[in-house]
């Protein structure tokens, strides 16, 4: 697991309320660390390495890299 060193929280945050569930981030994720159902999305935290490729590729800016970590 790769978490924020001090807080131990996940650093990639998907703003679910704004997500379009398009699957772009899933196709890009090298670790298969994103689960996407019909209208439900979350990060499989045991696999996420905080590489941020999903953040860069999200067409509508709903994935954020959070330095302090986020509670999920």
């Amino acid at each position, binding site marked *: 697991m790769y978490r924020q060193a001090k807080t131990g929280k996940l650093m990639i945050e998907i703003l679910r309320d704004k997500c379009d569930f398009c699957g*772009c981030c899933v*196709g*890009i994720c090298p670790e298969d660390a994103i689960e996407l159902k019909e209208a439900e999305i979350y990060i499989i935290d045991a696999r996420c390495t905080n590489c941020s490729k999903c953040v*860069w590729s999200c067409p*509508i800016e709903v994935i954020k890299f959070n330095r302090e970590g986020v509670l999920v």
Partner: protein
Amino acid sequence: MKTNYDIIVVGAGPAGSIAARYAAEQGVSVLILEKDRDVGYPVRCGEAISKAGVEEFIPSDEKWIAAHIEKFSLNSPDGTEAIVEFEDAGYVLERRIFDYALAKTAANAGAEILTRAYVNGLIIEDNKVAGVKYEYRGEPKEVKAKIVIGADGVESRIGRWAGLKTFVHFRDMECCAQVTAAQINLDPNTLYFYFGEEYAPGGYFWAFPKGMNTANIGLGVSGMVGKQRSALSYLNNFMTKRYPDAPVLTSIAGGVPSTVTLEKISAPGIMLVGDAARQVNPLSGGGIASGMIGGSIAGRIAGESIKLNKPDHVLTYDKAWHDRLGKRHETFERIKNGIYNFSDDKFNKIAHSFNKVPKDKRSLGRLFTTALINQPSLLVDIAKVFVI
């Protein structure tokens, strides 16, 4: 519903439905699992396709044709418009109806379809894919099959679980945002393309008419660009400038894997089709027609493999695809890399010189030739497209 099928197709988009149909037509049992409630919805697509691309698989039907296309309008950064005319070139589809029609042809051929079935794992036996695990209305289920066809779109997780390397480098992903808007006064039979830094660096911006003054307006930019600025912000910029008051009927996002096909699209018990196999035309970003072609080849081979009781036959799919389109896509990829890196100045020059060509001689081939004068190294690749 049975607990055991010859073939399971995951995903009921065009590639999945065609794969299921070509397999079912051979008398083998086929089940399609679709994660959403509906086949064909939500749409994640600009919806343009050539007439030939459609009619190889289904006769044209006004029910799913939103617009008939006769012209391309290619717009350079300084606003110069180059128009290329075609006869009966293609359509802008109503995908939610089109996908439904394709799924019906699969069902009529004997395939079963189950929606709201979310596949979340594979059953592996003796190092071979032997079925899928899925969630249906909240309950975990399993179903066995001799062959699983992954038509699960851009996500392409089925392939990964089977050990194929399917993830796309973010540079090769065209990140797209699109709105379907009303009160857009464009020619109803023209596809509009816009190139350049302002519109969509490393990609293109489009406006495709959909009848009654509505249009799909959107763009795709490489993930490399997305790192600095998102597709959405380019789209908002365009809409604010040109159509600030246009009512927006739909707004969607999506990823288009714009690159060559995966190195391996089959393994024992598994085949990938459509976006999942990265069978999109890398130059245009169009994936409906090429996905259906991939689906038809995979469906045919899967059916044959079952009937002949020859599991290894599925492995011939890679070469069959490569010979039909895969090889061509490699050339398109090289042209794409040439063209999409053009500077604004170069796009302008091409448009200016193209407009000096007599009107009756303006064709897409001619446009490429004009592009060549500005980038001679493209010659070899473009020649290949027209020779093959």
